[in-house]
């Protein structure tokens, strides 16, 4: 007799109740079952989590197998009549097919309904997500737009700050020698009082000297106005003198070929705002007008009082703005000028300054015939 490794020595000596091979088999099956149950308990092999295809296969196999094993026996127990039994046996297969089909139908339907529900929920969730993404995109776009505007503001204010420092420095440096000339002129007039009454030439020379100094002093004053770093909006702004200051500063760019036509209202009331920033506004608009005129042309500046507001119109005979470009002119960084010539910030800044004055800025333009800028500022 061969020794069984699973049995103790005493076992070998005892006479077994069942044949040893059978005992061995039972122990083996027990072990396998234990292992399987352990697996079921420990791991996630719960029926709930079994995959659908496994469930169906298991059900099908069980139903089929049990049917084959027990259907005949049950029939035999229930029915004794042989003819009835054979009749039943013919329909037995059909009965099985129909019952399993019905059970499987409900089983699959329940499963699919679950899936459909899930899909619907998923779709809803996806729609919701898409909506959120859309909202976020709009938010982001407005943030980017805001950032761009802020950036343009920063660039411009940085530029203005350095320009302001430069012009203020230059203005002061020029002012001093101008002061010498002015002082000398006063001194000369006093010292040469007697000759001046007699000599017409000397009179003219001194007069022209004074005109020159006055003109230079005017330019310096204009520069000072333009570069002021005042941030308050409560200054008294004389629109005519601001316009004239700007024209003095831009005079060199007119090349004698661009005619300036002034149509100023008599006794225009002042408005409240920021003198320096309004200088920027008119410099920007007038510069655009000058650059739009290729060779010769005309810029007409007119002022009017309308309903407690000041209307300033600047019309040029330049190249005009195309219909496609007109809605974009206030966008920061939009420019039709050659790279390096324009930053695309001028009108964006201008628009913002007018807005800060609670005013309005409108452009109408026709290609080749010119552009008309309309600025409305409340008097308050």
């Amino acid at each position, binding site marked *: 007799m061969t020794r069984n490794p699973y049995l103790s020595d005493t076992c070998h000596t005892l006479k077994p109740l069942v044949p040893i091979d059978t005992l061995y088999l039972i122990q083996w099956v027990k072990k396998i079952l234990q292992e399987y149950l352990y697996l079921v308990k420990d791991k996630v092999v719960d029926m709930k989590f079994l995959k659908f295809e496994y469930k169906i296969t298991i059900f099908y196999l069980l139903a089929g197998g049990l049917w084959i094993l027990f259907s005949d026996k049950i029939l035999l127990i229930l029915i004794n009549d042989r003819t009835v039994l054979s009749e039943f046996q013919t329909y037995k297969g059909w009965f099985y097919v129909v019952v399993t089909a019905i059970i499987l139908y409900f089983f699959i339907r329940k499963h699919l309904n679950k899936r459909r529900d899930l899909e619907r929920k998923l779709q809803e969730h996806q729609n919701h997500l898409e909506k959120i993404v859309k909202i976020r995109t709009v938010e982001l776009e407005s943030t980017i737009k805001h950032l761009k505007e802020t950036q343009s503001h920063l660039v411009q204010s940085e530029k203005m700050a350095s320009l302001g420092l430069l012009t203020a420095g230059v203005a002061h440096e020029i002012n001093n020698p101008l002061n*010498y000339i*002015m*002082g000398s002129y006063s001194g000369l007039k006093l010292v040469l009082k007697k000759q001046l009454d007699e000599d017409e030439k000397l009179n003219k020379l001194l007069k022209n000297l004074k005109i020159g100094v006055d003109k230079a002093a005017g330019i310096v004053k204009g520069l000072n106005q333009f570069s002021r770093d005042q941030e308050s909006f409560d200054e008294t702004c004389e629109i005519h003198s601001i316009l004239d200051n700007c024209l003095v500063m831009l005079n060199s760019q007119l090349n004698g070929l661009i005619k300036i036509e002034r149509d100023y209202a008599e006794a225009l009331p002042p408005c409240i705002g920021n003198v320096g920033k309004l200088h920027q506004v008119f410099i920007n608009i007038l510069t655009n007008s000058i650059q739009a005129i290729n060779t010769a042309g005309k810029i007409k500046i007119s002022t009017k009082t309308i309903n407690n507001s000041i209307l300033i119109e600047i019309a040029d005979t330049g190249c005009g703005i195309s219909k496609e470009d007109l809605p974009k002119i206030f966008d920061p960084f939009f420019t039709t000028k050659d790279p390096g010539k324009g930053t695309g910030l001028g009108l964006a800044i201008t628009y913002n300054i007018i807005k800060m004055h609670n005013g309005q800025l409108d452009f109408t333009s026709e290609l080749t015939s010119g552009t008309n800028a309309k600025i409305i500022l409340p008097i308050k």
Partner: protein
Amino acid sequence: MKKFKILYVDDEFINLELFEISLGIKYHVFTAHNGIAGLQVVEENPDIKVVISDMKMPIMNGLEFLRKLCTKHSEISCFLLTGYGLTPEINEAIREGLILDCMSKPFEMELIDKEIQRVLNK
């Protein structure tokens, strides 16, 4: 007739010279090239009626000089001259009455003369 005494403070020598030539005919002009020298001149000549000072100067600027001057001699009328436009600081000084007016450079002697006359006639 005895001339009224006025003081002009500026760090530019040429300006001082020209001021003296033009207004020296009408007034007894004292000049100083900075604030400290200006204060000293007033100490030595307390009968100075009008002080005109440049804004931008070394050591102390025009407003600082005039503020120091007025704490001791509040009866003196002060004017400021500047090559830069009006600043908030200057506007404040005009509001509180420290200076009667601020004139911008380049200044005209006739204008300064008129202002001085206005003060002296009061």
